[in-house]
């Protein structure tokens, strides 16, 4: 049976929510921007009026204002975005339990086999569009197709507040002429490879011998070839599906550039507090640690290392991360942001080979200590107990609502 997949994309999500909550903004070019004081001063989203001035996501606020002098800049309200994202998913769930979010503002829905109940996929798409508009005051564009990749492509073709159908019989005429970069999974790097070998459109990609693609891009090349030919068989996850955790990370842009190793150490220590806690609450241990360092020219570098033994202890993660940092970072420029990640995760009760030279007793004691700290924090608040050195923590920005960012569909 041919599948019926919808991809619903909420148009200019952040900016649309702001304009919906405050209709006086509707007539103005609007950009939702991070805080300049906290050094997140870039455009996160913009409405169509701002787009007309070529304001782009990622522009610095001053740049955007230069392009569009009358631009209204509003700060982000993440709690509202989370609320409307949840309400939209509740509306999608009226039609199917297979609702797979892709970031905050996009979802795939598998509505195969519901025709007798709800009508054709196109009718469902149209009803969803109307319902979201009526109930939430927001617009979506919907792609309807027989696989996830084309459904996503479809939702990009006509915006806002529109439905695009890509059918099995006619997808070659409809999308093969589009640039290859429009296909999900073709990023800038893959795009460059394609252009070098003369692949410019999705059709070019579909008609290239997959063996060549494999030699240029590995198995990903063959996957993209299958996508271009409409052979994406990936399923739409059920709405309560929680993907297995592959890493636990935490990163921040500091309020001022970091210039000494001591400053970096306090930031790393602070970041690993949360990582240790998350690992314990998910029952996972890390066998490795990775750091991402971005300097003040926005150049990012990352390194990783394996740990001798799996651990959940924040302080061990912090020490390993800092050790890695000391060995690798050359201090050519001050640092703007630091991310620490616990990687190579395993269940905490998985047996492992002990080493003769590791004091496991001490390690266990350390983990017990951290669990105790967790308990104190749970009862008396996060800041009730902390390392003395972190009391100076002047580099950390204030805490924000936590947001789950899209996990890649292609692994």
């Amino acid at each position, binding site marked *: 049976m041919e599948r019926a997949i919808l991809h619903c994309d909420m148009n200019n999500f952040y900016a649309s929510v702001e304009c*919906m*909550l*405050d*209709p*006086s903004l509707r007539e103005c070019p609007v950009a939702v921007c991070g805080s300049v004081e906290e050094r997140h001063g870039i455009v996160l989203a913009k409405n169509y009026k701002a787009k007309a001035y070529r304001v782009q996501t990622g522009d610095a606020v001053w740049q955007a204002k230069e392009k569009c002098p009358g631009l209204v800049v509003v700060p982000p309200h993440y709690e509202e975005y989370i609320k*409307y994202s949840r*309400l939209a998913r509740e509306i999608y769930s009226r039609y199917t339990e297979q609702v797979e979010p892709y970031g905050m503002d996009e979802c795939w829905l598998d509505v195969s086999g519901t025709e007798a109940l709800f009508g054709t996929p196109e009718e469902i798409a149209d009803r969803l569009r109307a319902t979201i508009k009526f*109930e*939430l*005051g927001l617009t979506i564009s919907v792609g309807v197709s027989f696989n996830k990749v084309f459904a996503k492509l479809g939702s990009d073709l006509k915006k806002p507040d529109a439905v695009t159908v890509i059918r099995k019989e006619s997808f070659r005429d409809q999308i093969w002429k589009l640039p290859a970069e429009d296909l999900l999974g073709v990023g800038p790097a893959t795009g460059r490879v394609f252009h070098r070998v003369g692949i410019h459109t999705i059709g070019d990609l579909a008609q290239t011998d997959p063996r060549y693609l494999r030699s240029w891009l590995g198995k990903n090349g063959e996957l993209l070839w299958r996508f271009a030919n409409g052979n994406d068989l990936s399923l739409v996850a059920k709405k309560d599906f929680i993907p297995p955790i592959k890493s636990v990370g935490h990163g921040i842009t500091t309020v001022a550039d970091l210039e000494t190793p001591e400053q970096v150490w306090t930031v790393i220590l602070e970041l690993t507090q949360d990582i240790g806690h998350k690992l314990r609450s998910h029952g996972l241990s890390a066998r490795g640690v990775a750091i991402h360092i971005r300097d003040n020219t926005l150049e990012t570098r990352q390194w990783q290392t394996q740990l001798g033994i799996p651990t959940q202890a924040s302080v061990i993660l912090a020490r390993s991360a800092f050790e890695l940092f000391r060995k690798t970072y050359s201090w050519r420029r001050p640092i703007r942001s630091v991310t620490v990640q616990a990687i190579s995760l395993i269940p905490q009760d998985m047996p492992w080979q002990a080493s003769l030279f590791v004091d496991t007793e001490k390690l266990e004691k350390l983990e017990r200590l951290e669990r105790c700290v967790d308990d104190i924090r749970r009862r008396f608040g996060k800041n009730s107990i902390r390392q003395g050195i972190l009391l100076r923590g002047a580099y950390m920005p204030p805490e924000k609502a936590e947001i789950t960012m899209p996990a890649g569909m292609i692994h």
Partner: protein
Amino acid sequence: MNSRKVYVDVEVTHRKDGSARPNTITFEDEGKFEIDRVLQICRAASTKVGGTGIRYTVLISGKQAYLFDEENGRWFVEAKNRGNGN
């Protein structure tokens, strides 16, 4: 714009089946108004003043109005701007 969002005090009966019936609203300094009938309940966005919630289409002294429950404890109505031109 000729409408504005006005948050109001509401007296509500919460029934044991989970449904709610707003009985009166207190509108700014104009006092308390009885809600004669609830005509429709649905989830909707307010196109006039922004925001969303559970929308009660109510009849107050023969006039139809929308009353929105934001589900965070606050209720609002779409009020007409007073006649001084703003």
